[in-house]
């Protein structure tokens, strides 16, 4: 059952081949059997999952429900789930039980009828590219358990790649959906900023954070993104515009599609084996009728430095709410209020989160604001203008998602700058706010390689269409890691 597409699972549920309870039990058993090797779940919610599966079975028996009703999912542990621990992979929130549901939790679980299998591991507060900063320990890559799954949505991708969830939610602030999807042979999409509600999604960098999905195909991703998207009055940056149909356009021909290849994404620093896979994908898309032109995003090399001003600045203000008073970790035996704040925060946050808070505090502090923060916001506009110009000439931009395949656990943990450079190809899309996705396009030394597609604002349907057409003529996305059959 865990090799079926979401569409096939929906057919199985409707035809009575299996019930949602049976399907959910199947995944819960797989989690029990395989997750000790991977550490992809922080919390498994078996009882709630089975209760939700029974409710879904009842809906289906009445002839109600939609295409996702009864299909279980994993939720990244950044989304607030009422009555279930929401940790954000931090000691700070180890005992935090959210009093409310995130909007996407309501949409996918209560409305669409997807039972939640559990809460998925991640980098602490989504700060990381390897899932090694989690308070609950690193996640392993199912393709090679000595390697990282990428991050921050490392638990989401490891679970879906190993068949421990049919599909999972994820979030992307600088590449946290696309880079882990690339490293685990999955299809992951970050929609346009504001397309999916951020209400109940624990904030890291509010002008960059966007929720999305990781799945085993573009078609699966389209179905879940369709159900997650939409205007939400509870999110002040939510887009008040109708959601496009993401499903019907999947089948369209891509004959005549204009694809831009940014020369900066193929410069020094890109691994030759990864490059070869990308070239193979370009050849396939040409056969489908796409045409390619070289384009330039001249300011994109500045996206990493821009991000490491903007994101920590926003994080340092967002994380100021954790004070040991209203919720979250509180230090014991403190006698002064000032010490309660600083000791609770020092004990509750891990080293990477503390580093970023300190960078953010520094770049926003008196005397440095103009040099760092204001300058970063200006460069952000240059990066955004680059995309606007290029999208006057092409429909989509294509390049690698990551410079190389998954790296060894522990190999970059002592060198933050080298870790940050993992996101060199993904960050620009967050700074500009455009949709972007990663999909499998081959293997180097037995490890998956991801292809990145970036689209103009609101062009999720076009990206998914291109990815789906590519997946109709290639089989990379159907490969699964050995040892998890």
């Amino acid at each position: 059952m865990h090799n079926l597409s979401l569409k096939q699972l929906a057919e199985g549920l409707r035809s009575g081949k299996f019930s949602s309870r049976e399907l959910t039990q199947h995944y819960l058993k797989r989690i029990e059997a395989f997750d000790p090797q991977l550490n992809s779940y922080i919390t498994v919610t078996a009882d709630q999952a089975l209760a939700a599966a029974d409710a879904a079975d009842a809906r289906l028996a009445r002839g109600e429900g939609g295409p996702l009703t009864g299909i279980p999912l994993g939720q990244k542990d950044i989304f607030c789930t009422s009555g279930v621990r929401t940790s954000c992979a931090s000691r700070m929130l180890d005992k935090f039980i959210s009093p409310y549901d995130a909007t996407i939790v309501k949409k996918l679980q209560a409305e669409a009828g997807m039972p939640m299998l559990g809460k998925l591991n991640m980098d602490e507060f989504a700060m990381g590219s390897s899932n090694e900063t989690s308070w609950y320990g690193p996640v392993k890559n199912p393709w090679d358990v000595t390697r990282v799954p990428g991050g921050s949505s490392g638990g989401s991708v490891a679970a879906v790649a190993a068949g421990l969830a049919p599909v999972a939610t994820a979030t992307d602030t600088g590449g946290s959906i696309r880079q882990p999807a690339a490293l685990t042979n999955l299809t992951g999409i970050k929609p346009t900023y504001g397309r999916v509600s951020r209400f109940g999604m624990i904030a890291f960098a509010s002008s960059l954070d966007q929720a999305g999905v990781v799945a085993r195909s573009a078609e699966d991703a389209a179905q879940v993104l369709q159900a997650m998207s939409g205007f939400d009055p509870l999110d002040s940056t939510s887009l008040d515009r109708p959601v496009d149909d993401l499903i019907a356009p999947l089948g369209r021909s891509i004959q005549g599609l204009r694809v831009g290849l940014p020369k900066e994404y193929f410069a020094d620093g890109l691994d030759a084996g990864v490059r070869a896979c990308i070239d193979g994908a370009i050849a396939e898309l040409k056969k489908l009728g796409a045409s390619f032109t070289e384009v330039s995003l001249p300011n994109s090399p500045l996206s990493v430095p821009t991000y490491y001003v903007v994101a920590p600045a926003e994080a340092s203000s967002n994380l100021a709410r954790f004070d040991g008073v209203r919720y979250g970790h509180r230090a014991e035996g403190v006698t002064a209020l000032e010490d309660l704040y600083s000791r609770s925060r020092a004990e509750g946050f891990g080293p990477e989160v503390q580093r970023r808070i300190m960078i953010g505090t520094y770049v926003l502090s008196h005397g440095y604001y103009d040099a760092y923060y204001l300058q970063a916001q200006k460069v952000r506009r240059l990066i955004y203008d680059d995309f606007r110009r290029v999208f006057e000439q092409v429909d989509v931009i294509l390049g690698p998602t990551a410079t190389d395949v998954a790296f060894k656990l522990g190999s970059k943990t002592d060198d933050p700058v080298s870790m940050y450079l993992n996101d060199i190809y993904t960050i620009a899309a967050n700074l500009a706010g455009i949709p972007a996705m990663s999909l499998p396009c081959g293997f180097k030394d037995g490890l998956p390689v991801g292809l990145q597609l970036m689209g103009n604002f609101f062009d999720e349907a076009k990206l998914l269409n291109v990815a789906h057409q590519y997946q109709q003529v290639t089989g990379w996305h159907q490969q699964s890691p050995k040892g998890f059959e």
Partner: protein
Amino acid sequence: MAQFIRIAYPHILNDSYPKMSLSPEQIRQVAKLARLELNPSLTDAYAGQISNILELVGQLSAAKTEGVGPMAHPLDMTQRLRADEVSQPDQREAFQAIAPAVQDGLYLVPKVIE
């Protein structure tokens, strides 16, 4: 990395950018502002790592941004306003239930005034 950017894309950078580094004393000051109790044994490590990160972001000062308006947000959105009406029920008890220490509906903190 700085080297790499300079060689590959000299046209987007001005001639020079300052090398920034933070001393352990500055780290202590920043940690104080951020309300983080600093483990003394980690101060030097943080100073080194954060200096490396600032060197990376220091490249920004060499970007040519004369006349460019700062961008705070994608789509240059403005915050939406809602009607000034009560829209949420009182959830005081639910919120207090997850607090580390409460009494009589109040959040408890260490004594502030002697």
